[in-house]
């Protein structure tokens, strides 16, 4: 909502007849100008905008800074193309027009549409830039149209000499299907350093996306902006919710895959990858892992209440799987208290060892198993005890 007086410098040279931007360079420029005017006047009712042309017989001020949008738009109507653009004179006269603005409290800004080749030297442009900076005038440059060697460099140099605290911007727009105005909407030229014009920009973006004469949701944002905004927000919320549901479904699908795959390695890989995915979603982690286990054990209809028991029957012979589950459990327990029940169960030394000894094909004396048990949280003491017990056993 910065209080600003803006002068727009329009390029109406012969180069604007070209059709590489549809329908013609001049038309897209006119559209962009009207969009900018609208954005500025909407972001703050006291903002004023003026227009001047840089080509033709000479630089001509069509409108001095005014808040009357109609007057500004009518100036763009019926403009003739011809001659060569005089960038330096255009900017200097724009600065003069801003100097004589009625409300001296307004910040000064110049927006230049540079569509034709620049005949000035880089040095000259830098001097102009310094003069603007000295008088605290910000400059926005829209580089489009004719692509000439050195044009971007000259414009960048001009921007660098004017720029004070990122108040000035440059946008390079190559020819493409998208209209110039669409490209500009997302740039700081419109958004005004990230605030203010964004509301207007969003409404026009919605309008543009919906088509030329069609508006999103059948509501004209200009007539009823609040309704349009409310509809758009609810649509986005719905979309976000659907995405979250879809993501969950995808994760379930991947964990199903994991259950059916017999190879331990890919299992653990899947488990770890799902585990890392779920680091960001600790609340669902447990449920999904339990479901995965249930599926791998071919037990239908698992839910979180029965999950504890199922989780502790660390089913398969797959020690790697158990280890992977262990890791994911540990990750989960770091972030929330929900899996604490399960980790407590897992951490219960005697329970775990009894479970593991009941598993077919798992030898409690197997070093792998011992390592697994050793890695359980807070079990080192009892583990050591157990080791000592077992060692004399073995030695016997």
């Amino acid at each position, binding site marked *: 909502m910065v209080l600003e007086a803006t002068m727009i410098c329009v390029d109406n040279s012969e180069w604007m007849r070209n059709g590489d931007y549809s329908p013609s360079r001049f038309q897209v420029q006119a559209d962009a100008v009207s969009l900018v005017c609208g954005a500025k006047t909407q972001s703050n009712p006291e903002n004023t905008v003026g227009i001047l042309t840089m080509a033709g017989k000479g630089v001509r001020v069509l409108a001095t800074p005014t808040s009357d949008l109609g007057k500004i738009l009518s100036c763009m109507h019926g403009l003739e193309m011809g001659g060569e653009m005089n960038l330096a004179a255009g900017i200097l006269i724009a600065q003069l027009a801003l*100097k004589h603005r009625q409300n*001296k409290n307004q910040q000064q800004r110049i927006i230049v549409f540079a569509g034709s080749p620049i005949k000035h030297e880089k040095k000259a442009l830098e001097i102009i830039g*310094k*003069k603007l*900076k*000295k*008088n*605290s005038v910000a400059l926005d440059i829209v580089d489009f149209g004719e692509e000439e060697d050195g044009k971007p460099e000259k414009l960048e140099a001009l921007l660098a000499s004017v720029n*004070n*605290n990122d108040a000035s911007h440059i946008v390079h727009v190559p020819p493409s299907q998208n209209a110039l105005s669409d490209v500009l909407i997302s740039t700081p030229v419109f958004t005004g350093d990230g605030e203010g014009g964004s509301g207007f920009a969003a409404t026009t973006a919605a309008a543009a996306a919906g088509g030329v004469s069609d508006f999103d949701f059948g509501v004209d944002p200009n007539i009823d902006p609040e309704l349009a905004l409310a509809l758009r927000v609810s649509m986005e919320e719905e979309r976000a919710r659907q995405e979250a549901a879809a993501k969950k479904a995808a994760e379930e699908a991947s964990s199903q895959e994991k259950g059916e795959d017999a190879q331990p390695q890919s299992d653990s890989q899947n488990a770890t990858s799902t585990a890392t995915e779920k680091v960001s979603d600790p609340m669902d982690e447990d449920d999904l892992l339990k479901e995965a286990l249930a599926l791998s054990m071919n037990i239908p209809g698992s839910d979180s209440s029965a999950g504890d028991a199922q989780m502790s029957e660390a089913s398969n012979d797959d020690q790697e799987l158990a280890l992977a589950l262990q890791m994911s459990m540990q990750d989960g327990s770091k972030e929330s208290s929900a899996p604490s029940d399960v980790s407590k169960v897992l951490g219960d030394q005697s329970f775990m060892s009894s479970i593991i000894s009941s598993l077919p094909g798992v030898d409690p004396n197997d070093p792998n198993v011992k390592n697994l048990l050793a890695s359980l949280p807070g079990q080192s003491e009892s583990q050591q005890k157990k080791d000592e017990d077992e060692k004399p056993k073995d030695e016997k």
Partner: protein
Amino acid sequence: MATAESASAIQRNQVDLLDFIDWSGVECLNQSSGHLLANALKQGYREDEGLNLESDADEQLLIYIPFTQVVKLHSIVVKGSEEEGPKTVKLFTNRQHMGFSNVNDFPPSDTVVLSPDNLKGKPVVVKYVKFQNVRSLTIFIEDNQSGSEITKVQKIALYGSTVETTDMKGLKKIEEH
């Protein structure tokens, strides 16, 4: 003699006009973004020798200081380094929104050329007649001592006295009986 006079004048009835500056309207053109006017004007900052007001694109600075009430300006102190401190300083009274382009359009109320003594803190007495009715002060620093690209000002202090003026904020509504 002159110095003794000015020194005693400061003691007599001159106050530091810092309290009467209307901070919401203070402006400075061509200041560098890391080194703002506050470094030279504000209490505390201006005493710090490391904090300076510096110019940006070239060596000139244009400072606009409005006051909350009408004041009489007696003298000013401009402190800076020997090379990069200001040299020629032009003062304009009661002119709003001046720009670099119109500083030469009307004559200044006073022109001060700062000597190295002044830069160390010796106050400069201004022309009495021209500064009796000051609502706002514009300080135009035209160049610096050594002619370098950047002018650095360490402190700007204004000394003077106030004129009896109604403080609009102090006016209270009379209770109706």
